[in-house]
């Protein structure tokens, strides 16, 4: 595919262009720690720093129908990183999949780098939203799914990643109740649960989605096959939430 096939999106004239794909290197999951090290300077990373790594990798590697060459296509799948804190895993996956060149990673957080400690969609090639303040991604994803539906695009999936502590924000619950009632079935959530919410979620996170009519699955957030199965489970007429449980942040 050539860039000529990419339709510029009218609403985003200033959005950062994905770099031309650099596919001389093919990265696998095993390369991600090295890519993260370019940002952190550390050889090993804490469970908290990698809490989203497997979930994002499996999405980009096996589920999302989006690539650097198709990032401007209106029919692409969309991934919205709502939990913008600790974006190294996200940047590593974007680099591994050719959205941004790995040589940007060492500049992480520096003045001229496009890679901040929270992503900015106008700066980060491949990022669908800017995030950092918690609780914004899910409402934006609801609007994105509504916008695609209104344009007759029934195929593209909208995915949003949230965290269990981020789930405290009431804006999530506004979105969940509405999306369930509305039957917004192209909307998908992956909730990374590393038991970091101060007051916890008695009865589990999935129960909040189920009560509002969502399809849900709760899986081991390090098990790629389980994640893939949960991501691809059919959910006709209903939005779908996957709770990916990983090691407790403070364990």
């Amino acid at each position, binding site marked *: 595919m050539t860039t000529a096939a990419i339709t510029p*999106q*009218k*609403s*985003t*004239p*200033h*959005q950062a262009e994905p770099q031309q794909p650099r596919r001389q290197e093919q990265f696998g999951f095993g390369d991600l720690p090295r890519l993260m090290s370019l940002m952190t300077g550390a050889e090993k990373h804490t469970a908290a720093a990698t809490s989203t790594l497997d979930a994002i990798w499996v999405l980009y590697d096996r589920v999302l129908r989006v690539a650097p060459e198709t990032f401007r296509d*209106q029919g692409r799948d969309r991934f919205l990183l709502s939990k913008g804190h600790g974006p190294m895993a996200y940047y590593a996956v974007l680099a591994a999949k050719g959205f941004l060149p790995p040589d940007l990673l060492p500049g992480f957080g520096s003045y001229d780098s496009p890679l901040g400690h929270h992503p*900015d*969609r*106008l700066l980060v090639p491949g990022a*669908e*939203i*800017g995030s950092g*303040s918690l*609780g*914004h991604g*899910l*409402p*934006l*994803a*609801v*609007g*994105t*799914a*509504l*916008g*695609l*539906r*209104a*344009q007759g695009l029934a195929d593209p999936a909208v995915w949003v990643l949230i965290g269990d502590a981020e789930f405290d924000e*009431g*804006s999530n619950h*506004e*979105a969940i*109740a*509405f999306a369930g009632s509305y039957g917004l079935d192209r909307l998908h959530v992956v909730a990374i649960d590393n038991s970091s919410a101060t007051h916890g979620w008695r009865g589990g996170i999935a129960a909040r989605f189920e009560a509002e009519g969502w399809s849900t699955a709760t899986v081991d957030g390090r098990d790629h096959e389980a994640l893939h199965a949960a991501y691809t489970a059919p959910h006709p007429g209903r939005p779908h939430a996957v709770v990916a449980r990983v090691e407790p942040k403070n364990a």
Partner: protein
Amino acid sequence: MDTMRDRFFATTADLLDHDPRIAVVLADISAAAFAPTAERHPDRVINVGIREQLLIGAAGGLALTGMRPIAHTFASFLVERPFEQVKLDLGHQGVGAVLVSASGSYDWPAGGRTHMAPGDIALLDTLPGWTVHVPGHPDEAETLLRHAAADGDNKVYVRLSNHSNADAQPVAPGRFVTVRQGTRGVVLAVGPMLDAVLAATEGLDVTVLYAATVRPFDAAGLRAAVGEKADVVLVEPYLVGTSNNEAHDALADLPHRVLGLGVPREEHRHYGSIDEHLAAYGLDAPGLRGRITGYLR
């Protein structure tokens, strides 16, 4: 005469019929009025319920897909309650929307403070790039709504009111209208304030400018209107002083004075009617005349 809000319903229904980019997002307020339109455009008239964070977040998401969202509720719940969504889900994402408010300052005095948002435009002034329309008549509201809907992906706030002037002015975004010319100073009336300003300045040798768009502020228009005396009075139907800095900036190259009149910052714990509140704020014709003549001596 229909109200500005009535005209908003009719105009938006027409926009939906003719522009596939337009989508309306509601948070229960005005949902009944939009019901017939929603039947024709079920995927583009969306009522999220009483959820104002989602109202703005969903508008941002719609814009991310290339739509032109129009989000509407009372000003208190459109600008103040979800202000961070206005900042981040629109501005920071680099997308636009049309926010259409009702009941901005004093439209429902019996409703009390919870339904008053005189500081809405001052709040938007803390963010870059917002166009702000304050129509003073339903015809102006329609003109400005149509302009806003077609205004690319810009961020536009349209502040509708039950308070309006008897006649429409020939408004065009970006420039003030000269209604009356004089030599002893300039009185800038914003939106619904025009009729009271005209009555208050009857027989006075002053220029009366009219603004239905206050952001961007027509600095060149104000600069051109001041003559020998650069004395300016701003009469705004929202928080007093909201546009003072704009006027000072417009006149920065010459000695000048600016008096801002508007809705006081202090809570006014009375109910009653619009007229009673305007009188209490000193924004009725007698109150304005006293303050204007006292200033432009």
